């Protein structure tokens, strides 16, 4: 009997599926669940200023009063009362890898972070569970006036006012239930400030590793790219797989000033027990440019829609993303664009691949306000299904409130074209290779936007394993 052909194996997570025991001696954990005493305990641990403590409590109230979304993937199995919202390694944040505790250092060594830092990054922040354990920025970058530090240090130091002015203003806690949760229990994350006119030639990166079973990670990233400045920021994340749910409800707030440029690249590879309820938002001033590059490969359930507010005239945004959903995954991803300024433009290009019963939903929203005259929008989403067990939906909404705009959208869904396979085979390429080439080509528009090392990682994630007919 012939074996069923597959053209793409599931994501190879063996690289990421390792873990270390977290003893009480080395780690501090709050009890599971969420209530006022836990929020106050976290606030106390972090030595919050009064305004932040009060803010956390306000967020807790909003969280308790807000319902879960009634659209999107089912999250009824996520029991917040079983989640441990704060797990702290009993170590200080280090500026050298040698000073990081052995197990934690080994974790990041296996993930290739120190090597990447040496070879191709301007700075790295490494978060383990709820706290940053390593943060460093190259001297030459710091000398340009670039600030890249953990958010909590910034909140207590010379940037305290800047943090207070911006923290959760772009993503208010009323946005949705898990934004409110984030506001109540956030911990870790980075603050980046790039001064006027400074071009950071090589990327900064943050890497988030959630090691503890049944825990949540709620890091907050705040980036301000000042007028005329330029930055590429990379974010990576992973976790070992457990039989209990983990939760990621991080928040990313990006401010792109006049004529500035920010590229934000993410490779998300959470384990398949993770509920990834992340919120990312950017606001772009006049002439500014925002680029998102997003690869989503992990999580059991994802709700992820990076949003860009094109506030200034002639601001623009490009979103390039790929989502791969396999067995046991329900990934609801997409993007949102809000046009406010005149002559703004946005481009969304996404690819999705679903396999082995994976469920993939592309969900987007484009809003062109009355004031956004002269705006242009292009949305393109392609979906590839590799078997009939899987599912793929596209739900792109458009709300246009001016006649002076140009909005176009197109989407295609289907399987690997038999004609394309036949064509390649007629040129001497085997069927298995032909399928592999087509899937790789399908993902190429996203992988080519990533720095080379991460494109390689992404291609490794989409490991192609062909099983031919026997």
């Amino acid at each position, binding site marked *: 009997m012939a074996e069923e052909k597959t053209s793409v194996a599931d994501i190879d997570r063996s690289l990421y599926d390792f873990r270390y025991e977290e003893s009480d001696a080395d780690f501090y954990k709050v009890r599971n669940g969420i209530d006022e005493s836990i929020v106050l305990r976290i606030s106390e641990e972090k030595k919050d200023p009064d305004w932040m403590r009060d803010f956390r409590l306000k967020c807790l109230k909003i969280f308790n009063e807000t319902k879960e979304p009634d659209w999107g993937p089912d999250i009824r199995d996520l029991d917040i009362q079983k989640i441990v919202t704060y797990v702290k390694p009993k170590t200080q944040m280090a500026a050298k890898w040698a000073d990081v505790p052995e197990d934690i250092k080994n974790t990041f060594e296996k993930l290739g972070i120190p090597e990447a830092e040496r070879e191709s990054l301007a700075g790295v922040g490494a978060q383990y569970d709820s706290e940053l354990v390593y943060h460093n920025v190259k001297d030459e970058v710091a000398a340009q006036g670039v600030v890249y530090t953990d958010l909590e240090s910034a909140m207590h130091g010379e940037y305290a006012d800047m943090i207070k002015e911006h923290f959760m203003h772009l993503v208010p806690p009323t946005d949705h239930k898990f934004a409110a949760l984030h506001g109540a229990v956030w911990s870790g994350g980075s603050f980046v400030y790039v001064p006027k006119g400074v071009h950071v030639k090589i990327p900064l990166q943050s890497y988030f590793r959630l090691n503890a079973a049944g825990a949540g990670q709620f890091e907050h990233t705040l980036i301000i790219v000042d007028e005329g400045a330029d930055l590429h920021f990379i974010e990576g994340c992973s976790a070992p797989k457990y039989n209990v749910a983990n939760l990621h409800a991080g928040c990313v707030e990006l401010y792109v000033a006049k004529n500035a440029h920010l590229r934000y690249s993410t490779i998300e590879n959470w384990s398949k027990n993770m509920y990834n309820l992340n919120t990312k938002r950017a606001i772009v001033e006049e002439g500014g440019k925002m680029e998102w590059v997003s690869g989503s490969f992990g999580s059991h359930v994802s709700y992820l829609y990076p949003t860009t507010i094109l506030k200034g005239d002639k601001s623009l945004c490009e979103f390039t993303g790929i989502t791969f959903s396999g067995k046991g995954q329900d990934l609801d991803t997409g993007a949102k664009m809000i046009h406010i300024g005149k002559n703004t433009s946005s481009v969304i290009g996404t690819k999705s691949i679903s396999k082995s019963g994976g469920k993939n939903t592309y969900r987007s*929203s484009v809003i062109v306000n009355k004031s956004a005259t002269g705006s242009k929008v292009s949305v393109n989403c392609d979906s590839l*299904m590799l078997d*009939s067990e899987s599912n793929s939906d596209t739900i792109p909404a458009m709300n*246009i409130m001016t006649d002076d705009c140009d909005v176009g*959208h197109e989407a295609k869904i289907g399987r690997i074209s038999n004609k394309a396979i036949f064509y390649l085979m007629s040129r001497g390429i085997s069927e298995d290779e032909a399928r592999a080439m087509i899937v790789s080509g399908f993902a190429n528009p996203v992988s080519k936007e990533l720095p080379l090392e991460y494109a390689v990682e992404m291609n490794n994630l989409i490991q192609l394993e062909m099983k031919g007919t026997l």
Partner: protein
Amino acid sequence: MKEIIEKTISSEVNQFPRLTWHHLHINHGNINCTLTDHGTYRIKRTLGVEVLEKYAGHSFVKDVPMITQMGKAFDQKLDAFQKENEFVISEFTVEAGKKDESVKLSFSPKDGEQSFTDLAIRAKENSSSTFILSAESPAAFSGSFGIRLRVLAEANALVKVIFVNLLGKGFTVFDANASLVMDNASVDFTQVQLGGKSSFTGVRHTLSGYRAQNSGRLAYVTAENNELDVNYVTHQIGKETESSFVTEGVLLDQAKKSWRGTIDFVKGCVDSKGNENENVLLLAPAVVNKSLPVILCDEEAVEGSHGTSVGKLGKEVLFYLQSRGVSAKEAERLMISAKVASVSRFIPDSELVQKIQSFVEGEPA
């Protein structure tokens, strides 16, 4: 004579099969209308079509339940109105093997009329038929006007349905439609929505049979502060089914429009194809256009595509026309006429097509 029990319906309708962000206000429309009477129409038909009036319990729709795309809850309210008032369904049967049969129903509601008409078409095997439904009134008239149409296309049957709304500016209009398409059968819907203050159209096609097909097109011009709410869904269930749907629309003044188009590839519909397209011309700064083109896919071996384009008259087109002595206003009128004509050309009734043209040009019918 039995007193009519009127029904005021205030309901969510045209629900999108999934839900998306509520703040977009696109998941459904909201209708408010009062029904106080059964609609009346003039009929012309060919002899191969039998017309009977039946109570719901005796109609074929009892055994072949079809929920229209305006929604189950709305359908139930219509059922209740029918039952309470002992109103009937007008059931049209196209006999097996009969070709090129046609029926024309002309509705001319009076000023203030608040009526609902329940129609059902059963096209038996190997038949072909065209049903033209037109609703007209002077521009100053107002009221409520509703139609429910359920179509069963049996094996190898071909049914064309045309609905034209040329009602007055004060009307709340709804047409709630459903079709069930069997093996090798085909249903084709053509709609022209020009009249009414608030208009709702919901169409659900269920392509149940092998090689079942549906095709369709909609033209609308929504102006002043009028509203149009559209919900088209095709459930493709059988193997090798095909669906296609095109919308050509124009929005003027302070008009608002919500358009939802869903292609649903149900598991098992191997080798099926579905395509939908919406093209909207915006001709005033205060319009509001909402579009939600959706593909739901549970089957690998299909081809689905959709596209939407929204915008104003292109500069190149305008320049070309102006260089030939056509003013900007005239160019807009030309484009509006062209969009409507691209759909009305599928109407095999020259008199009705002329009425559409006159309506678009703002001339008395």
